[in-house]
């Protein structure tokens, strides 16, 4: 019985693995144009529903504040969280924060897409260099996204999509940073 069942699943997954629409839509990467069009349409939808342009890192900063407060600390006197609107978001909590909920959705969606493409893999850390690069990169990104008041989604992508000049300025320096960062990566991490 168990054997028959697992044979059936194997047959089904083999058949699915050869199906051209499975390969086209779920297995292989979509063309850049398809991705760009879908991102544009969906970010308009999320702006209409959540009331704010698409952003990611602002919520991650709030996750930090919620963590500190859950551990008994307080961010009351931190300049970043001192405004009324920032306080209101923190007081409402993570489940009432559309940006956090959307971030959970992005993580769940990304997981679903790799699972359905059967590309899920837990990667081992292989060298100390990878750890150094990840920690350094995370710290720089975290610091940068706060002093710039947004990451490449909130400040760059959404900035441009709502016709803000700031988004274009961000984009120019993002490009310059990427060029310098790319050179440093090749020089020191390879």
């Amino acid at each position, binding site marked *: 019985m168990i054997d028959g069942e697992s044979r059936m699943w194997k047959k089904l997954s083999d058949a699915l693995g050869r199906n051209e629409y499975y390969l086209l839509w779920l297995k292989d990467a979509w063309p850049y144009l398809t991705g760009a069009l879908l991102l544009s349409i969906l970010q308009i939808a999320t702006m209409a529903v959540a009331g704010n342009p698409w952003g990611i890192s602002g919520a991650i900063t709030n996750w930090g504040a919620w963590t500190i407060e859950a551990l008994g600390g307080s961010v009351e006197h931190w300049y970043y969280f001192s405004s009324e609107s920032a306080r209101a978001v923190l007081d409402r909590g993570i489940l009432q924060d559309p940006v956090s909920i959307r971030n959970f959705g992005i993580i769940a969606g990304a997981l679903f897409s*790799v699972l359905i493409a059967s590309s899920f*893999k837990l*990667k081992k*850390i*292989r060298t100390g260099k*990878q750890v150094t690069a990840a920690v350094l990169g995370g710290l720089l990104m975290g610091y940068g996204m706060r002093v710039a008041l947004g990451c490449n989604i909130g400040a760059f992508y959404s900035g441009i999509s709502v016709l803000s000049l700031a988004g274009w300025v961000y984009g120019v320096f993002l490009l310059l940073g990427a060029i310098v960062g790319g050179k440093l*990566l090749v020089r020191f991490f*390879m």
Partner: protein
Amino acid sequence: MQERVLDCLGEPCPVPLVKAQRALEDLEAGDILIVQIDHSCAMKSLPEWARDAGHNVEIEEIDNGEWEVVIEKS
């Protein structure tokens, strides 16, 4: 004819691409470079670059989320 395996498992984009470009410089025409990757974004960038550079490229799925990009230098 020489065959070389380049282990890029665990390396994110663009590290596999740069490493493959460097490794390919040391090879002669007709030699084979097998690049092992597990970062899906390198699955796009690496074959795309190699085909643009005129090499023959084949991708083999080894396991879930693990691929070998086989490049024959032209």
